[in-house]
């Protein structure tokens, strides 16, 4: 159990550094450290599927973010914070904190599965009947591609929309800049 608290402390320190540092590159590297800490945690909680996805997306996202920021002039953040924005974010954080306190009271202890509290939950059925009904040895696969395949369809649609949006926006901007440079 101690390893989780060490990792949590590590993640918290990295998050605080990522928020407070002025250098964008070190902020990105701190975000990467947060992701790697989270994936280690998933691994120790016996969820290798999520750990693999987390670490892979983290590496790719880190490369993209570093490439996106390192070429810009804007590697340092400057300027004062707005008063109104600060007040609004403090209020929102306070409301979320109060809601979170209520939620955390109902959660089981850290690292203990929720099945022990809810015996007749749908997840118990998946664990019991998953291999027989779908034939997949990996239960996570059988859930995301059989029981909850609609979720995966929605996820694929989101990815499709995001690539369409990225292509349209970036192409438009690039074309405008090309036209400007011609004039």
């Amino acid at each position, binding site marked *: 159990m101690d390893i989780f608290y060490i990792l949590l402390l590590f993640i918290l320190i990295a998050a605080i550094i990522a928020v407070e540092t002025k250098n964008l590159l070190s902020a990105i590297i701190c975000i990467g450290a947060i992701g790697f800490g989270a994936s280690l945690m998933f691994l120790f909680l016996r969820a*290798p*599927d999520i*750990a*693999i*996805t987390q670490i*892979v*997306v983290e*590496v*790719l996202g880190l*490369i*993209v973010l570093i*490439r*996106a920021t390192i*070429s810009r002039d804007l590697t340092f953040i400057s300027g004062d914070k707005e008063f109104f924005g600060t007040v609004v974010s403090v209020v929102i954080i306070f409301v979320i904190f109060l809601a979170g306190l209520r939620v955390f009271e109902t959660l089981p202890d850290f690292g203990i599965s929720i099945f022990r509290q809810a015996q007749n939950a749908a997840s118990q059925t998946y664990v019991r009947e998953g*291999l027989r*009904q*779908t*034939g*997949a*040895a*990996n239960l*996570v*696969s*059988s859930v*995301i*591609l*059989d029981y909850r*395949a*609609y979720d*995966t*369809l929605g*996820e*694929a649609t989101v*990815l*499709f929309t*995001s*690539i369409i949006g*990225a*292509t349209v926006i*970036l*192409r438009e*901007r*690039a074309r405008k*800049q*090309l036209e*400007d*440079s011609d004039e």
Partner: protein
Amino acid sequence: MKGMTVIVKTISSWVKVLIFLFGIYIVIFGHLTPGGGFAGGVILASSYVLLMLAFGREFVQKNLPLGISSKLDCLGAFAFAMIAILGFFYGGIFFCNFLVERGQAFGLISAGTIPLSNIAIGLKVGASLFLVIFSLSIFRRNTSANK
């Protein structure tokens, strides 16, 4: 953008093959071991991102043209939707696992439509992430040409 030094180019051209194979393994064995379509697709995309970082954008564009990768993206989405619709026709339910009786449990050919869906999702995720990074690098080229 000419790419990096000879050392980086040589090593990444070797490592790229291994990463690609590992991605294919993660996708195909998604119903038996941890992993699956999404993680495998991201690994497949990252092998091409490694090539793009080491050799430059033009090399990758010659290796995997934009038209082919966008067609692969559409093919993955189409295959996933077709699996769902075939389930509707054969089993009566959208996304019905209509092939579940075929094959032995714990074998490579098992679990009905799940490996097929994994392959479709892997194609889709890999191609679309590659396209996102590619379009980002095109945008960057144009801004730097302006300065």
